[in-house]
């Protein structure tokens, strides 16, 4: 710990010195008598001031929680010598705030005594937060010297975003061969009625439509839509992260991605993840609870990192992008590299849709003539970009928390995809 004399020590020393010198100069005892209490207090205080020999340990009662939940930071304190007033303040990262302000706690410590301080913290923002760093300040009995230190263990707390529960998300155009909750467009063995056709040798007898067969004098069989799963790949554009009022495009994208991932994994779809940015990260498609956990962890670790390197879809391993997969991109549509990759994927025949986190919500218009024109031009360019993407058959729908709910935006995106399919059919 670093000892530091307080301003009080300097002031008392100054006044005491002045009093003594003045007493000698004028040959009277009054200035010396006046300064004596200060001098005695200073001498006793400095004699008592010793390094407190503090031992500080910190722990948290939980290391995984949901956004908005609280956790308790438990600080264990012990000292070799008496500390009349000990201030303990947690050094909090952005997104974590004390439940009761102020977070700084004051207490006294006797030699060898062990005390515990519990500080309740509220995790206001998702992410991986590092807690445990503490600023400690120990005052000596008379307040002439204070010992300060900042340090402590690194306690990693993973805060998951609060997600929106979706009843419906985007339905992939094509399903895969595995069983799932999605009705395949093909006819086969399933529950939902699809069509009736003439009996063919080899058809199971339970498929025979007896009512129609008795009237038509030929055997007819019912056909069904098999229930299959689909492959969905979430494409997270992490090239750019725009910030405004403690929110950012990447934060919103991750929040939406987790809601969508939970929906698809809950419906037995295989879900993969590509974080396409300065650092390329991926998670191959998978199913199940363990995979859901892996997706959530991977999303928590997502962050934008600056890079000038050009990256195309060829850097993405092929096993991460299975054929017939729905590629759902979450992007602010700012970085050319992410846009080019999405267009490339579409041209390679992937079913691509974009959930846009609109950059317009994070940029403020400059309030002068040039600023207004620039703003309008920029918005026109963005509209043109969305139009070009739609022309390619890529649905684009903007989503912002202040606007319609995510489920409604996905419905809009689905409606566009349906229109495109009908037009091309």
């Amino acid at each position, binding site marked *: 710990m670093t000892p530091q004399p307080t*301003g009080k020590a300097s002031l008392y020393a100054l006044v005491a010195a002045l*009093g003594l010198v003045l*007493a000698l100069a004028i040959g009277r005892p009054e200035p010396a*008598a006046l300064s004596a209490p200060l*001098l005695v207090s200073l001498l006793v205080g400095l004699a008592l001031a010793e390094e407190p020999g503090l031992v500080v340990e910190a722990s948290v009662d939980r290391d995984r929680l949901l956004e908005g939940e609280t956790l308790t930071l438990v600080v264990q304190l012990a000292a070799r010598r008496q500390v009349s007033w000990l201030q303990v303040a947690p050094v909090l990262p952005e997104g974590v705030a004390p439940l009761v302000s102020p977070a700084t706690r004051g207490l006294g410590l006797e030699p060898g005594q062990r005390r515990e301080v519990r500080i309740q913290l509220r995790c206001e923002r998702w992410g991986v937060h590092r807690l445990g760093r503490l600023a400690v300040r120990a005052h000596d009995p008379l*307040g002439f010297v204070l010992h300060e230190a900042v340090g402590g263990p690194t306690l990693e707390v993973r805060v998951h975003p609060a997600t929106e529960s979706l009843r419906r998300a985007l339905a992939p155009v094509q399903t895969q061969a595995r069983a799932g909750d999605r009705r395949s467009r093909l006819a086969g063995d399933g529950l939902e009625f699809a069509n009736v056709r003439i009996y063919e040798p080899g058809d199971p007898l339970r498929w025979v439509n007896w009512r129609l067969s008795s009237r038509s004098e030929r055997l007819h069989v019912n056909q069904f839509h098999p229930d299959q799963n689909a492959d969905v790949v979430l494409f997270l554009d992490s090239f750019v992260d725009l910030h405004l009022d403690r929110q950012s495009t990447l934060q919103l994208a991750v929040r939406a991605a987790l809601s969508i991932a939970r929906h698809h994994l809950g419906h037995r779809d295989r879900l993969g993840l590509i974080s396409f940015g300065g650092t390329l990260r991926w998670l191959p498609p998978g199913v199940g609870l363990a995979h859901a956990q892996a997706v959530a962890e991977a999303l928590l670790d997502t962050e934008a990192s600056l890079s000038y390197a050009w990256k195309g879809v060829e850097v993405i391993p092929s096993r991460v992008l299975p054929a017939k997969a729905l590629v759902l991109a979450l992007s602010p549509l700012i970085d050319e590299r992410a846009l080019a990759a999405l267009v490339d994927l579409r041209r390679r025949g992937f079913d691509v849709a974009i959930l846009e986190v609109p950059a317009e919500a994070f940029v403020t218009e400059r309030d002068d003539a040039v600023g207004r024109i620039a703003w309008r031009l920029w918005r026109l360019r963005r509209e043109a970009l969305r139009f070009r993407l739609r022309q390619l058959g890529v649905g684009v729908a903007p989503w912002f928390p202040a606007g319609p709910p995510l489920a409604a935006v996905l419905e809009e995106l689905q409606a566009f995809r349906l229109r495109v399919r009908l037009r091309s059919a």
Partner: protein
Amino acid sequence: MLLLVAGYLAWLPVAGGALLAWSPLAGAGLLSVGELSFWSLRAWPPTLDEPGLHARAAARLALVVAAGAGSAALVVAASQLQLRPGLHLLAMGVVSASGLLALAAGLAWRARGDG
């Protein structure tokens, strides 16, 4: 604090020796002002203190002020001793004052070097 000291000293030529008897009280008052001022400064940054902490600090302050008043009374009592004025007395005063200040500086140095 410096203003209070200056005010007290300004009265010295006017009041003559009458102020000497009040010096321990004035010294204790000065110490109280200093302690309370620094106590109020310690309130920043805001801290949630445990119950009883302020009561203990107040008791400690009262003890320090009482000890301060006692030390001032000792100085006043020492000044009443019938000593022959002269160079040797002045030299003793200079040595005592310098010694006290050197002791304070030494203790401050020790406190700084502890860590």
